[in-house]
Each structure stands twice: as C-alpha cells, then as structure tokens.
C-alpha cells in the first residue's frame, strides 16, 4: 500500500486515510457535486437558525432553505438575525476535531448572481475582467474537497453571504423593499449618499446602517426590543449607526487583514468588492500601520495555520486557489465577529459614514471635498481589479500594502477565548463552538467609539480652510485699488484720438480735394439708372431711417441722389421708423437745398409723413394701408397728404414710382425689404446705406432676382454718385468735401491698428514667454 503525502504537511499517510494523521488536513479530494446536489444538501453542520420570517420576494435558495427548515434539517443562517458574538463563535470556534464538512460547490444561484452582477454591476469593465472564474470546474471540485472542515464551514458562510448578496441584488431589481428604504435609515447616512456614489452602493450603505440584533432567537428579538431599536417588518433595526457589533474593548485585527481583503474582493461580487475597496481606501487614508506583532495569540495561531494552508488549499484552480485562500483567510482573521466579508466591509463603511457626518466640517463641508473623498473610495477600486491570483499575500506589493484597510477593520472583531464550549440545550445541543447565550447576552457591548473627525489630510484641511477664508472674504467689502491716472490704454487712446483728429484737421485745413473719387460702382450705376428712368413728377417714397449719429455719412452718401430726384422733379414722401426721422428728413432736405441751391420747400414739393412706431409692425401697417397709417403731413398745417398733394395718385406703396430708403441700420434695412418690398409690385426699391450695414444688405442686392434694385454705400458710394453726376449739388458734394480727409484718416487708422496690434502681439508673446519660464522654474 503506497503512502500518500499530505499536501499540507508533506508527511506520508496511508492511502486509505482521508485525513492526514499528522495535521488533519484532507488528503483525498472530495467528490465534486452538481450544483443541484449542492443546493439540496444542508450547508455544513451549521446550527439551524431561523431565517427570520417570511419575505415576499425571497429568492429560490432561501425558499429552499426554508423548506429544509420545515423538514427539520439544519437551516441556513440569516446573518442579520445572528448576533455578532454568535457569528464569531460559529466562524471561529468550530472545533478542529469536528468532522469535515461537506464541501460545497458554487450553486446555481450564486453563479447566476455573479453573472448578473458582472453584467449589471456598475463597475468598470476591467473589474469584471479581474473577477476570477467562480464556477468550479470538475478539477476544482476535487481540489475543493481538500478544504478542512472548519474552512468549509466558513465557505458555507460564504455561501450564505452570497445568498444575501443575491437578496441584495433582488433589492436592486426592485423585488424587495430595502430595510433602509422602509426605515428611512439611509437618511441618517446621507452624508455618503452623494450623487457620485452609485445607487447600489448608497443602498448598500443604507442597508448596513441598521444593525440587526440577532443575539437572541427571532422570537425573542421581536418580543424584547431594546430601547432605541425599531422593528421593521421582520427585521430589527437600530436606528443609530452600525456600531453595536464593534466593541472597542476587544483586541482588534489590524494590519494583515487589510492585505487579505484585497484579494478576497476578487472573489466576491462587484458590489461587495466596491465596498471592500472603499473600506480599504478609507483605512489606508487613516494611515494606521499594520502591527503584526500585536496580534493576539489565537490570531497568531491562525496566521500560522493559514500559512500552512496556503500552499495546499486549491479549490478553484490556480487563480482561484489564492482567491479562495484569501477570502478564507479573511474569514478566519477578519470574521471573528462578523464572519462575512460583507459585515466587515459594512462596518468599515459604517465607520466611514459615521465620521463623515461629524468633525470640523460637519454640515459645511464643501461638496468638492465630499466628492473627492468619494472618488478616493472609487479610486481605490482599481486595487480590487488587480488580478490577485498570482500575488502571495505574504508578498504584497507596496501599493497594496499602503491600501490595507487597517483601521477599517479595527475595533470590529473580538477575540473570544471560549473555544470548545459545548451547547447543552436547545436546537444547538451538542454542538461545539456554540456560545452559550447567557454570557454573551450579559456581555453588553458598548458602541465602538470612533474618531468623530473627518478623515482628511493636512493638505486637504489647509485647502478647505483656504476655501473657507475665500468664501468669507467674499462678503467683506474691500477697497478698490485706485487706478493710476495715466495708463498705457489711456495713452494709446489719446494717441489714436490725436492722430485721427490731426489727420482730418490737416486735410480740412488745407482744403485738399486731390484724391480721386471712386468710379462708378455697379450698385451705384443701377441706382443712378433707376433715378434717371423716373418719370417726370414721379412719386418717390423716401425712407429717412437713420439716426443723427450717422447723419454725416448718410447725408454725404444720399445728398447727390436726393438732389438727383429733385432735379427730376420728384415729389418726395418722407417717412421713418425712427422718431428722429422727421427732423432728419427736414435736415436732409435743407442740406441738399443749401448745397445745390434747389429750394425744396413746402407741401407742394415734399411731404414729411413722419414717424411709424412699432418698427417692422409699423412698416407692415404702412405698407398695407399708408393712407390710414400716415394720414397727415408733419407740416404746420397738418395737411391731409393723400387728398391734397400729388400723393393722392398713390393708393398704396405700389403707386409710388420709387421707394428709396436711407438707412444706417441693417435691421431697419431688412425690415423694409421684408415688410415693404413684397408689396411694391414692381416698384423699384433702392437703398442708401451706411458702410456698417453694407455686408448684411448686399445679399439682397446680389440676389437673383434682386430684392434691392440699387445701392449707394457710404461715403464711397456717395462719392461714386457724385463722380458720375458731377452736375449734382452744384459740384459741392459732401462726399467730395470729406473724401481726402477720409482717405488719409483711413490710412492713419490702418497704421494705428497695425502698429498697435503688432505691439500687443509682441507684448502677448513676451508675456507668454515669461509665463512659461516661470512655470518651468516652478
């Protein structure tokens, strides 16, 4: 008979032995079972516990467990009904001599849960990639058989944890109202429920808030609710923070747990991984150093045994080996009081949540700081994503060392020295490792005391203080520093003004008229032709739609054209959509008269129809019914123009021979084109426009068919018109008068813009250079 070497201690054992005679490790692998079998089997030898009552949308596995409960079989845990002390004992104090537990595979529900979680969990894709294969392969199952009994038991807890995860997931799917939702407890922890936290995480935190007192059987729990606890449905919730299970007096596991949580998170579902990572980040931020030397004796033993097991327990293949080991390690070390990773992380989160609501910046902590902290939680998740299968927990990378949730686990797990106690009565009679109720009940736990300070670094605190001061300083009046009387912009403006004025004055003073006026432009030619073709005593509607501000330009541009009309003997009807239009019309007629010597006076020669209020509406009304809208002229006699003047021949605007609009505003020009031009029925529309309106009027002139039949643009247009009709204005055209000054001052302006622009460009470049140098120095 060949000896079989124990995979754990390496010592030879007889082949028929299932367990190592030296170290009690399993030598023969357990047969892998189908998920169905796994499901139908009782989960280890765990003491049956009440599930805590009926739930409407409870999952299949839980129904099954209930069914098995009815059949008198051991029932699965409902960990929320289980007191912390009981969890500890069930986890840790299972005697090593106990029969090995039936191994468990990964049941269907867990697989499906993980697959759903992988699909739906709001984790980055690389997290999913980092998730190890959970489904055990047949080979893995055989390896799983080697799990010692106590570890199997822990794994069964793991299963229960997964079941709870499933339930959690069901909550997210809306199958079951959450405890937190029922009790509104989440509001108490709203400090961490910011928008930057995923819903599931927020819900999870809210879920963790209540502490279910399960130190007594469910019936007792419902009957003897301690003060301050609230019964919600079938769950007992303490509306405080989740600190009941955290005993400050109990020695704590600190450092090495942090290193183990990380690998474990690779095994756990995404939602849980996030929590663990969050806890890890918080703990790492607290900067608590690991202290392996301070481990209590029992934990040191566990550490040793775990170290032995590390090489041997290979339940899930190479990658799963480490993972399984890790979470088992975590269960062993961290699960003294809370056997589930979830418990562990919820506590850490609870701690974090508690500290969030207090401290120096309670209530007035800036949002960005909160978000920064939350993002640090999320940022810690890449640690979870790291494939941990090839990492030995003893050789953690430095970055992972730094992320260990040392403080997160502090104060959570108590060490109980009551191993070996045997339950003498009740459903747990005969079970070893089950704590007697009395001592534990008597051992009232004080809520753990946590530092009620916001966990911020010094630099963060400094920044927050700075921000606080900034915000405060906003409300304080400050003296506006006096501006220097002479600044470079001021000087530059003065120079511009002086150059322009002197240039113009020079030309005006010399009376130079040497610059040639522009030749006949196409648009001016068209305009000229239209006026040339006007019949004798034509009716011309003259829109005087400019402001006094640009009267200088508009009169210079329009004077020759108006004079041309006068020479043709046209009867002018002046109208305006500007309130100053009537006066400007009179000014224009007077100016043209004074220049040309043609005295256009009286209602017999022109009618000032006045002002059309309402902008485009006024124009539209005038275009539709000019007789009703402008019945009287603005002459001293208030003449009814449509009956007593040549205008009586015009029933509407189409009755005019020409509509000429003088405007400096592209909007007004557009209003004339849009509202009046369509009603003209072939009557030409010409425009004398300012250069500032030209770009937006020219498309109407360059259209095919034309919407504006002719244009005179600005001083150059007026000059062009004067040039083509040199007899107009008796040769005293305003454009001719201004043209030389205009020519020279335009050149001066170009030089000023070019020089000023160049100087500013160089200054800008020099400043940029200085800035970059300063940045480099920094």
């Amino acid at each position: 008979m060949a000896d079989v070497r124990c995979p754990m201690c390496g010592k030879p054992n007889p082949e028929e032995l299932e367990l190592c005679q030296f170290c009690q490790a399993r030598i023969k692998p357990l047969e892998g079972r189908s998920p169905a079998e796994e499901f139908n089997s009782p989960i280890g030898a765990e003491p049956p516990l009440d599930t805590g009552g009926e739930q409407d949308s409870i999952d299949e596995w839980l129904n099954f467990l209930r069914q098995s409960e009815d059949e008198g079989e051991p029932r699965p845990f409902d960990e929320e009904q289980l007191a912390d002390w009981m969890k500890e004992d069930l986890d840790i104090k299972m005697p090593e001599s106990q029969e090995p537990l039936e191994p468990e595979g990964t049941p269907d529900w867990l697989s499906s849960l993980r697959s759903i979680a992988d699909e739906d969990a709001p984790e980055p894709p690389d997290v999913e990639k980092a998730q190890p294969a959970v489904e055990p392969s047949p080979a893995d199952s055989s390896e799983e058989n080697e799990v010692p009994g106590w570890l199997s038991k822990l794994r069964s807890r793991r299963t229960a944890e997964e079941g709870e995860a499933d339930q959690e997931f069901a909550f997210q799917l809306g199958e079951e109202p959450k405890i937190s939702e029922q009790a509104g407890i989440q509001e108490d922890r709203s400090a961490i429920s910011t928008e930057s936290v995923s819903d599931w995480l927020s819900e999870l935190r809210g879920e963790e808030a209540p502490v279910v007192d399960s130190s007594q059987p469910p019936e007792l729990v419902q009957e003897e609710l301690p003060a301050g606890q609230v019964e919600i449905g079938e769950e007992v919730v303490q509306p405080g923070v989740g600190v009941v299970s955290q005993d400050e007096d109990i020695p704590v596991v600190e450092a090495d747990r942090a290193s183990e949580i990380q690998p474990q998170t690779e095994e756990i579902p995404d939602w849980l991984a996030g929590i663990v990572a969050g806890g890890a980040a918080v703990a790492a931020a607290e900067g608590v150093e690991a202290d392996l030397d301070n481990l209590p004796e029992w934990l040191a033993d566990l550490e040793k045994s775990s170290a032995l097991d590390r090489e041997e327990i290979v339940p899930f293949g190479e990658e799963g080996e480490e993972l399984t080991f890790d979470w088992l390690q975590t269960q062993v070390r961290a699960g003294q009081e809370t056997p589930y990773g979830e418990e562990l992380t919820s506590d850490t989160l609870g701690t974090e949540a508690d500290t969030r609501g207090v401290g120096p910046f309670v209530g007035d902590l800036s949002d960005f700081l909160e978000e920064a902290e939350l993002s640090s939680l999320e940022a810690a998740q890449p640690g979870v994503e790291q494939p941990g299968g090839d990492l030995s927990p003893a050789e953690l990378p430095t970055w992972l060392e730094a992320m260990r949730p040392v403080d997160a686990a502090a104060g959570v797990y108590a060490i109980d020295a009551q191993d070996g106690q045997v339950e003498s009565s009740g459903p747990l009679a005969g079970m070893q490792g089950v704590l007697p109720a009395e001592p534990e009940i008597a051992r009232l736990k004080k809520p753990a005391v946590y530092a009620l300070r916001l966990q911020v670094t010094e630099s963060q605190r400094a920044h927050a203080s700075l921000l606080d001061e900034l915000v405060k300083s906003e409300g304080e009046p400050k003296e506006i520093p006096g501006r220097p009387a002479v600044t470079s912009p001021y000087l530059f403006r003065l120079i511009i003004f002086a150059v322009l004025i002197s240039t113009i004055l020079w030309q005006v003073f010399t009376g130079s008229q040497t610059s040639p006026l522009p030749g006949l432009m196409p648009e001016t030619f068209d305009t000229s032709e239209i006026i040339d073709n006007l019949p004798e005593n034509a009716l011309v509607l003259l829109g005087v739609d400019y402001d006094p501000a640009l009267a200088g330009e508009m009169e210079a541009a329009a004077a020759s054209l108006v004079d041309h009309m006068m020479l043709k003997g046209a009867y002018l009807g002046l109208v305006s959509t500007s309130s100053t239009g009537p006066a400007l019309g009179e000014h224009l007629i007077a100016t043209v008269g004074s220049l040309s010597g043609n005295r256009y006076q009286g209602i017999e020669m022109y009618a000032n129809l006045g002002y059309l209020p309402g902008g485009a509406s006024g124009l539209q009304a005038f275009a539709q019914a000019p007789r009703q809208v402008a019945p009287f002229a603005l002459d001293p006699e208030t003449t009814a123009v449509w009956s007593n003047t040549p205008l009586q021949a015009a029933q509407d605007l189409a009755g005019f021979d020409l509509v000429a609009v003088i405007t400096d505003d592209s909007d007004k020009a557009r209003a004339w084109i849009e509202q009046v031009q369509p009603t003209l029925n072939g009557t030409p529309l010409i425009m004398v426009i300012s250069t500032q309106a030209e770009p937006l009027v020219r498309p109407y002139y360059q259209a095919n068919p034309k919407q504006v039949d002719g244009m005179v643009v600005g001083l150059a247009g007026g000059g062009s018109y004067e040039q083509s009709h040199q007899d107009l204005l008796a040769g005293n055209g305003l454009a001719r008068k201004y043209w030389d000054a205009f020519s020279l001052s335009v050149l001066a302006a170009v030089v000023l813009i070019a020089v000023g622009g160049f100087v500013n460009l160089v200054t800008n470049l020099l400043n940029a250079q200085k800035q970059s140098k300063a940045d480099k120095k920094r």
Partner: protein
Amino acid sequence: MKIPVAAAIAIAFGLVVLAGYFLPLPELVSLRTILVQWSMIIASTALFVGVANLLRVHWFKLRKGGTASAYSFLLIASLLVTLVVVGLYGPTGSWSLWIFNSIQFPIESSLMAILAVVLIYSAARLMRRRMDLFSLLFGMAVLLVLLGSAPIFGIEIPFLYGPDGLRSLIVQIPAVAGARGILLGVALGTIATGLRILIGADRPYGG
C-alpha cells in the same frame, strides 16, 4: 387669471396676423392690417410710458440729492423744455428743429465720432487678447477692406482699390456668403423664437 388672458391675446392675435401673410383671404388680410395698425398705436403709447418712466426715475434721483441729482436735473429740464417747445411748434417746427439741430444732432454725431477711437483701440487689442486663425482672418479682412476703401495719398492701389480690387472681391463674395448665412440663420432664429411665443412656450410679456 391675468396670465392666461395675456397669453391668449398674444397667441390669438399673433396667429391671425401670421395667417394673414400666407392665406390669400381678403378678409384675413384686412384684419391683419387692422391689427397691425392697432399695434402701432399701442406702441406709441408704450413710448409715452417709457418717457414717463424715465421722468419718474430721474425725479426720484433729483429728490435724493447728491452729484447725480445735477445730471438728473439736466435731463428733466431738457426733457421738459423739449416737450414744451416741440409740443407747441410741432416736430418740424423751426424751434423744434433748432433744438434738434443744435443739441441732439451734434451730440449724437460726436458720440459716433468718438467711437472711431474706441474701435481702433479694440482692433489693436484683439491681437493681445486672442490670437488664432479666425482672429487673424478677421484682422486681415479689416485691414484689407479699410485699405481698399479709399486711395492712399491720392494713389489708387491696384488689386486692392476699385470695382475689381481685392476689397470689392472680399465684400462681394466671402462677405456676402457669410452674411447670407447669417441672414438665413437670423430668419430661422426669428421663426423659432416667434413660434415659441405663439404657442405660449415663451411669454416675454410678463405672463
């Protein structure tokens, strides 16, 4: 109660006027003409209300005292004098035109003249504040159009000045293209904004 009334008025009359543009029904066109004419009358009243408000504001400032009250006094005085004189002689009366030609015309023209200084200054500052392709194009267009606006020292620069010069090309081709796009964009924006008002989504009249 007042809110629906105002909205109903805006929507109902607006739709009638709009329909008058597109439906060749003589009655509708007549109705549109009447409605638009009424709006002109009401706009005149609005102008009066604006002037009254201006008077009220500066009256309060005058009563407050201080340096600003002197300016308010000038404003009120000039306003009242104008009201009286122009009211008596009519808008085209000789004294009314005297006020206009002696006060309003020179002030407004001078304000426009001083704008030239500001424009040169801002054009030069443009290179300092922003330097990219589009500001470069903008600056080049400004300089070329200005240089092509008039002969330099009496010399007509070829390829720049005149009907076939670069200035004319810029003004007649790319500027027309851009301006046409802008005009169409403005028209579309007018329609979009107007329709929002006509369906009651926007109520800029205080409803």
